[in-house]
């Protein structure tokens, strides 16, 4: 097997990977995409609802429509796409990376890449990870699985559903299940406020009279064969169940929308540095990871709220990977970004100050804030400032920093959010 050589290989053909491959191609690199599913588009294939693309295209698109625009461009540019192709092994080689892959047509084969973009998306947190107890009856699903069953396979998982978690995916599925003929008995959220967008609270719950129970969680599932009911329970300020507030809700399906986790399994063997707060790699503004030549974007980097930002990060990672592959490599000079105050996390986690230009920073607030102020400073000097009327953890914020403002020789850059 003499491996085919590419400048850039992009792993994952969701919106992040599609944008990365287009950007790398635009920058003049030879690029191919590797996708394990039968079709490109990633999770957008099953997100048939609308609301995507307002930032990037100024239009309200459905998930498949959003993906279609990028897929058309990938096809138009003649970018090679391997589908139903699974990455078995990823290793360093002299010139960059060597990938060992398998699919039905070519059995086992290798690709070599000077630079790599990991755009592998995220996976869902499961019932056991939120510590729901009881037996293990059929009828407990994550929201993404339900979405796939209904929208791709055409099956209704159950008729009487309880949804745990008020994130957008849970809200969207409440509406979808209702429209397809199931009864959604309620959405239960452990926090005192909903996680999803107000628009989704209105259009997915209120439109259909689906009750939302805050500060309430599911603690136990009942039934041995098929789910027969769940115990719901109110929680205190520390999110601990309040004894005596248990209530039994009969239902045949429990849908979990309890969070997403970046999927970076393929990076473990390379020892890439991971940020425990985001679950994704530690990167700089080029989205370069701790491993030279390896770039990260999309939900694999951190869980994004809007697909538009996923595409943006894909474009940055793709362009950076192309530059790296085409030989424009200077050793970086990294300065860490210290997130302080009310910040949940910030990406990138460091800046390469040997470069000029602009750096895009994303952050999330640790809690709901009104009249908040973000200050970026270095060595006591303020580099930028922004005021926010309101900030909520589910919504990601984006700011652009002029890197020429960063004074030479600073040890770190401080990002501080005050409520």
């Amino acid at each position, binding site marked *: 097997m003499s491996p085919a050589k590419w400048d850039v290989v992009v792993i994952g053909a969701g919106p992040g990977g599609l944008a990365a491959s287009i950007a790398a191609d635009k920058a003049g690199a030879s690029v191919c995409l590797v996708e394990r599913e039968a079709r490109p588009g990633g999770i957008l294939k099953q997100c*048939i609802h609308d609301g995507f693309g307002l930032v990037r295209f100024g239009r309200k698109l459905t998930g*498949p429509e959003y993906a*279609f625009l990028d897929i058309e461009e990938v096809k138009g540019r003649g970018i090679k796409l391997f589908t139903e192709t699974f990455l078995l092994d990823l290793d360093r080689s002299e010139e960059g990376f060597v990938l060992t892959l398998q699919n039905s047509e070519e059995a086992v084969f290798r690709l070599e890449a000077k630079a790599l973009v990991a755009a592998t998306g995220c996976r869902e947190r499961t019932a056991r990870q939120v510590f729901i107890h009881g037996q293990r009856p059929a009828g407990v699903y994550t929201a993404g699985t339900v979405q796939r069953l209904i*929208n791709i396979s*055409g099956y209704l998982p159950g008729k009487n559903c309880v949804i745990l978690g008020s994130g957008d995916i849970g809200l969207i599925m409440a509406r979808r299940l209702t*429209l*397809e003929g199931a009864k959604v008995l309620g959405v239960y959220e452990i926090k005192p406020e909903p996680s999803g967008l107000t628009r989704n609270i*209105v259009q997915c719950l209120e*439109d259909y009279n689906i009750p939302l129970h805050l500060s309430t969680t599911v603690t136990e599932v009942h039934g041995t064969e098929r789910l027969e009911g769940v115990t719901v329970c109110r929680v205190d300020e520390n999110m601990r169940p309040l004894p005596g507030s248990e209530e039994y809700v009969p239902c045949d399906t429990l849908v979990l929308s309890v969070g997403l986790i970046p999927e970076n399994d393929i990076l473990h063997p390379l020892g890439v540095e991971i940020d425990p707060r985001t679950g994704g790699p530690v990167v700089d503004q080029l989205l370069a990871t701790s491993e030279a030549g390896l770039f990260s974007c999309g939900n694999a980097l951190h869980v994004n709220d809007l697909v538009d930002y996923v595409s943006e990060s894909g474009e940055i990672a793709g362009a950076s990977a192309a530059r790296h592959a085409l030989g424009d490599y200077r050793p970086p000079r990294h300065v860490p970004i210290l997130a302080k105050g009310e910040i949940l996390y910030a990406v990138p986690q460091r800046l390469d100050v040997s470069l000029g230009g602009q750096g895009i920073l994303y952050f999330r607030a640790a809690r709901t804030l009104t009249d908040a102020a973000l200050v970026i400073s270095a060595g006591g000097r303020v580099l930028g400032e922004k005021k926010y009327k309101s900030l909520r953890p589910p919504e990601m914020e984006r700011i652009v920093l002029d890197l020429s403002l960063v004074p030479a020789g600073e040890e770190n850059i401080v990002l501080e959010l005050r409520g």
Partner: protein
Amino acid sequence: MEKLLVCIQCPQGCKLMVKTEGEEVLVAGNKCPRGASYARQELLNPCRTLTTTVRTEFPDFPLLPVRTAGEIPLGSLFAAMGEINRLLVRNRLRPGDVVLERVSGTDVPLIATADMTLN
């Protein structure tokens, strides 16, 4: 008629109060004109884009994602679902292709949102 709403035009989420007084519609709580027109619309004729799927006769693509090309009255969503659930797609459609000319008594067409020719 009277209604309490949370505005969804921007992330600020103003709490709106809207009511009719005779011919007139009064809105309170909005910080901008977009809030006022949103409240008026929600009170008099709330409309939504319907996104769902249609059966196809292709085993490799059993369901085609679709949406209404514009908004239709909130009250007609279930009637529209009933109608759409009886459809069967016999051609490989692409985004924008019309699946149904008029959805449930409106003049809004139902269009494909995914590319069935892709594989």
